[in-house]
């Protein structure tokens, strides 16, 4: 592989702005992204891109580069087990054992919106009358616009979404696309959020979905983000990470629990802390 001068400069820029770590062996993953940045910013060459990064630039350009260098791969009910754990274990823990008026959930890297919609469909099937506040955030402004629209083409709509859910919760719109119904979209608060640099709400969330995000961070930043997520969890709240992700190397005190074929991580509630 060529060792292009643009690699370390772009990698450092992305790291400084997002915490996403492209090590030398990941540089090949920047190739198509470099081409796209050059195309979308109308630059003449990789050297021009280097100059652009070095010379400082406005927020819009920064946002464009961050958009292109983040991974937006997602689909409905991805990995399935976390949604079963939510429905069969976590929600009953809050709703049946400790009735409360509102459950706060955060999909903290929601990409094009399939995850928060999957969360809501899961809850509606079992607890149709439960009050839910669902925050869905992402670092990428562009992908967040797609999430807000709730519109998916036929291939996206079929990736992981059972046909009964498609018929029940989506309406067909032009160009053979499908749009999530207002009963779903109106329940979600979408917003830009940089896990690396934004201030987190404190002890707000009963459940945080942070899946396949921290794998792109180095250990130091992973720990920083995990600590902030910990602070954002309500006592007794659950952190749900991606399949195969773990807290290894982290010092945060979350109890690992096996539920519905997946691992979830629970913060002690206050009663437990006193008892301990």
């Amino acid at each position, binding site marked *: 592989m060529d060792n292009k001068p643009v690699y370390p400069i772009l990698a450092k820029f992305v790291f400084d702005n997002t915490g996403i770590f492209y090590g030398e062996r990941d540089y090949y993953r920047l190739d198509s992204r470099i081409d796209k940045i050059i195309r979308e910013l109308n630059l003449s060459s990789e050297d021009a891109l280097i100059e652009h990064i070095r010379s400082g630039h406005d927020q819009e350009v920064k946002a464009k580069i961050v958009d292109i260098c983040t991974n937006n791969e997602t689909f409905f009910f991805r990995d*399935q087990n976390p949604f079963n754990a939510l429905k069969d274990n976590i929600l009953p823990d809050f709703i049946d054992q400790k009735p409360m008026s509102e459950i706060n959930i955060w999909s903290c890297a929601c990409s094009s919106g399939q995850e928060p919609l999957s969360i809501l469909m899961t809850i509606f099937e079992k607890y149709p009358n439960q009050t839910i506040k669902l925050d869905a955030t992402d670092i990428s402004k562009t992908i967040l616009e797609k999430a807000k629209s709730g519109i998916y083409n036929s291939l996206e709509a079929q990736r992981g979404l*059972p046909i009964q859910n498609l018929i029940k919760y989506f309406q067909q719109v032009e160009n053979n696309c499908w749009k999530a119904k207002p009963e779903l979209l109106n329940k979600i608060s979408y917003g830009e959020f940089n896990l690396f640099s934004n201030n987190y709400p404190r002890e707000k969330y009963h459940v945080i979905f942070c899946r396949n995000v921290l794998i792109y961070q180095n250990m130091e930043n992973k720990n920083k983000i995990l600590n902030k997520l910990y602070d954002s969890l309500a006592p007794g709240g659950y952190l749900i990470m991606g399949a195969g992700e773990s807290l290894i190397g982290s010092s945060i005190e979350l109890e690992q629990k096996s539920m519905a074929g997946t691992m979830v991580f629970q913060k002690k509630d206050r009663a437990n802390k006193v008892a301990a």
Partner: protein
Amino acid sequence: MKILIVDDSNAIAMVVSEYIKELGFEAYHASNGKDAVDMISQEDIFDLILLDWNMPVMDGLSFLEFNQQNHLTKCPIMMMTTENKPEKIMKALELGALEYIMKPFSKEILELKIQTLKKAAA
């Protein structure tokens, strides 16, 4: 897992058959609903039927109606068709189809749909 593809297009049947084999399953082919009825009547060995809608002799909807009236098979049926209007999808579900794939689709979509059906059956 034995999967019966019911589709009058040999080209589509071939592509889907390749997908199925790549996923580690066995693929069989019937050219229309009537052929499928004959094959199943002879030996009801299938674990999943992938059923096209528009076919000569007996179309997919007629196959569903025939199956509902004659209890031909309890094997799960997944529509695999270009018909994509919600009212048509609902009609097929009412007549006993358990899943629905709108053409065109990818191998990954087929795999995810098969996994969902397998989990539901487990």
